């Protein structure tokens, strides 16, 4: 981000950044809330009196958080949510202490909104699940689990298949959540998805990022499941809070697919023994919109191709800001 290190950042903020980077904090919603909380702590704990300095300091803290995970859009969205409100207040000439209050208020608001969003998705999504359905899910998505658990609470008898989700076995966490909610779970290896697809009546997965065209970036394997579902005529739903929609993709930016450490896949000594083997470990893949039946958001169920509706309605300001920044850069270039 090119910012020189010159601010003292509270250790709690650095700890949160580290937790996100090392995946101790996982899941788009939790990452987003952790980032909002980090900004809140950064504001609360700072001893800056100059309001211009405060803006630079908050910008600096934002960049630390932004650099932790390249793919998850919930992270920049959470930060943009807070920082946009901060910048607006700054432009209105608010004082340092007022600006700090704005950050705290915005972060609290975001955390509350994101927690409620997942619950709301559960309620809306549960309506799509019918008595007797057999639902397949992949990885560990709070929103997807919310849909399944809510349907179960409404008394619908449903079967659940969970993939183990290599390399980090997040399917185990999903399995644990589902059985705690009173469901029985069938656990299968990722390679057996197509084998079992004929038993599945609906697929519900989460999302890390929803792009402007409705493509969904989610845990690697999602697109293969979507393809197998399409082949078998099984509806494929994505449960995604609107903070997972990416305003940056509206202006053409590509979603970077993060590749993680090979030792998540094989032990260190395997790599040492086999210098000719490269382990490629992408965390995500891209599911094209034509394989997605619908995206379940906290505002309702939309066809994936209508993702732009969510983006324009809820991130109009962010897109606007981006477009203005880009046109300003163009003008600067001309001069």
């Amino acid at each position, binding site marked *: 981000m090119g910012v020189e290190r010159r601010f003292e950042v509270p250790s709690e903020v650095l700890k949160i950044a580290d937790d996100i980077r090392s995946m101790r904090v996982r899941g788009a919603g939790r990452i987003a809330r952790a980032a909002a909380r980090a900004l809140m702590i950064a504001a609360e704990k700072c001893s800056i009196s100059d309001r211009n300095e405060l803006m630079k300091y908050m910008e600096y803290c934002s960049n630390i958080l932004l650099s932790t995970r390249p793919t998850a859009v919930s992270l920049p969205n959470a930060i943009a949510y807070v920082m946009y409100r901060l910048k607006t207040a700054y432009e209105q000439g608010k004082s340092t202490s007022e600006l700090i209050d704005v950050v705290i208020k915005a972060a609290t608001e975001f955390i509350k909104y994101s927690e409620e969003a997942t619950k709301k998705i559960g309620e809306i999504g549960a309506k799509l699940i019918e008595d007797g359905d057999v639902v397949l899910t992949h990885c560990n998505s709070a929103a997807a689990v919310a849909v399944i658990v809510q349907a179960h609470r409404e008394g619908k008898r449903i079967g659940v298949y969970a993939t*183990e989700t290599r390399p980090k076995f997040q399917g185990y966490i999903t399995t644990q959540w589902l*059985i705690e909610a009173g469901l029985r779970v*069938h656990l299968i*290896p990722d*390679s057996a998805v197509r084998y079992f697809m004929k038993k599945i009546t609906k697929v519900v997965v989460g999302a890390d990022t929803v792009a402007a065209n409705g493509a969904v970036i989610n845990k690697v394997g999602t697109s293969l499941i979507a393809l197998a579902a399409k082949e078998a005529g099984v509806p494929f739903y994505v449960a995604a809070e609107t903070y997972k929609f990416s305003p940056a993709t509206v202006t053409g930016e590509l979603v970077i697919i993060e590749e993680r450490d090979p030792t998540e896949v*094989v032990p260190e000594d395997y790599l040492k023994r086999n210098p*000719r*083997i490269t382990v490629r470990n992408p965390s995500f893949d891209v599911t094209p919109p034509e394989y997605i039946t619908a995206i379940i958001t906290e505002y309702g169920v939309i066809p994936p191709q209508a993702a732009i509706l969510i983006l324009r309605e809820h991130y109009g300001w962010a897109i606007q800001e981006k477009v203005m920044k880009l046109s300003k850069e163009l003008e600067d270039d001309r001069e």
Partner: protein
Amino acid sequence: MSYGRIIEDLKLNIYSATDAFHTVMNVTREIAMKAREITDLVRELYTFSKLAIEARPTSALLLNGIREVVRATLTTLREGRGLSEVRNTILSTVQNLINNIENANTLVAQFMAKRVEDGDTIMTHSYSRVVLEAMKYIVSEGKRIRVIVTESRPGNEGHKMAEDIASLGIETVLIVDSAARYFMKEVDKVLIGSEAVAANGAVINKVGTSQIALAAHEARVRVFVAAITWKISPETVFGELVKIAEKRPESFIPPEKLSMWAGKVEVHAPLYDVTPPEYIDAIITERGLVAPQAIIFIVRELYGWPPRRFEEIFTLLEELRKYGC
């Protein structure tokens, strides 16, 4: 003799059908050599053959190989021959089978190698002897390739496949099974082995094969299956009707999870799946490349039409059992 360990391996731990075949033939040879009485020999051969077939009902190669041995043994028994003649018949049948199958595998590997061009990126799945042999020919023909190998859960035999490919000097990439579609756009050809080929051209192979073939089909990447004609199963409409063995949960899920989830979680890990013929570009046999839908012509060449030359294995075994009493 107790075959518990070997049967367990055949069922769950040996992924290459060729390796499974060799394991069975070695035990068969041992049985023939060790027996002191003709009835002992017949009884042991009966017991082991039956166990081996039941352990791996999906493997047509195993079934066809065992049928050859049992048939030859029965011929000598029916003629009233003594121990040494029966023994020699078994040993020579086993040796002939091994030679024929190795020759056929080599031909298939050579044909497969010809389909690969310099600069190709190949994807493969599980552990296949023939695909590995094809890689040797590719390298010796001076073609530079890159191979993407899936780890192939449950079992992770792709880890070993990657090591053996890399040891040929080939640039090798190991990925998780889930990433097959992610990498498909970099792939020129998918090369896989097989457990069995059904009469309609469907291929039974390690679980995960069918979704890789599906992703290849979607990306218009060609899929080639190595299958010597011994792997063609004329008598069974395989499809999903065959009972597919499942890996034991404790072999790939941590025991503490299994005990915590007891009664609430069912683990399913089928070892094989069925790839429909429309996702396969060609099946490579020792008689040449055929479209999967044309496998039926090979069935006709081998077994006549309608297929009449094969004998039901359990009928043969039952007759064998009687000679052991």
